[in-house]
């Protein structure tokens, strides 16, 4: 039976792939900061979301670098002990 070609199966699989990737792209869209998308609300292209994701990750890396630099300077003067950990835990609760 030549009608049973993998073409239909392939179409079905690629449809699933597109849907799931679209779902994940929208999940990413929710995670990145919203102030960028104020102009067009839900019709954001996947490439734009990916680009914003890359920029966001890069900015997070830069922030980690900057914060670790400041932390290393601050840690010279102070000492960390277990009481601080409790303070921080109480900050988060």
């Amino acid at each position, binding site marked *: 039976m030549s009608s049973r070609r993998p073409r239909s199966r392939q179409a079905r699989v690629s449809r699933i792939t597109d849907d799931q990737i679209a779902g994940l792209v929208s999940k990413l869209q929710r995670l990145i900061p919203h102030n960028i998308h104020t102009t067009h609300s839900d019709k954001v292209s996947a490439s734009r979301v990916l680009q914003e994701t890359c920029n966001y990750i890069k900015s997070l*890396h830069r922030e980690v*670098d900057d914060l*670790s630099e400041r932390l290393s300077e601050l840690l010279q003067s102070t000492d960390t002990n277990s009481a601080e950990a409790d303070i921080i835990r109480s900050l988060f609760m």
Partner: protein
Amino acid sequence: MSPSQQPSSPNPTHLKIRFARRFLRALNNLNITKTSPDDDDDGENRVYRRSRRVKIAAYTAMASVVGSRRAWSRAVLWKVRNRSRNRSLLSVRPRRKRVDCKITNNDHDHAKVFVRRRNPNPKRDPFRDSGQVLKLRKLVPGAETMDSWCLMDETADYIKCLAAQVEVMKTLVDLYTTT
């Protein structure tokens, strides 16, 4: 047909608390070992090395909180372990880093079996090597050989954990600047 079941995403507050605990412990260790100054370093180099140690401690703490559930945390831990091994001039044991998606049995405290969809065929994966995706693969650790679906999934988790890490570090900086 749901080809994959996700492990439940961690509560962000729990994540922050666990990260804060490990990070503080690591900083404590760093502080203890840092008290002996290196005389052959000039000031700038010393500052750079110290901040680099703090940065590595932060990434390691976050990766170890996530554990081996995620490919990016495994990649981070492997990289750090490899770097410290090379530094101490030990022989590097050849380890197979498995970053492609397959069935993974997790026997840590979050013992869940999650199945990832296996999609090695690039024809079915239209986004695999498009421009933005390549940039993303370079940014997310361990993401070089994944298919697009796993890549998106890892990216989402990575962003969540990175954002939590940044928030905790900001809180710490504020705490230490005020006291």
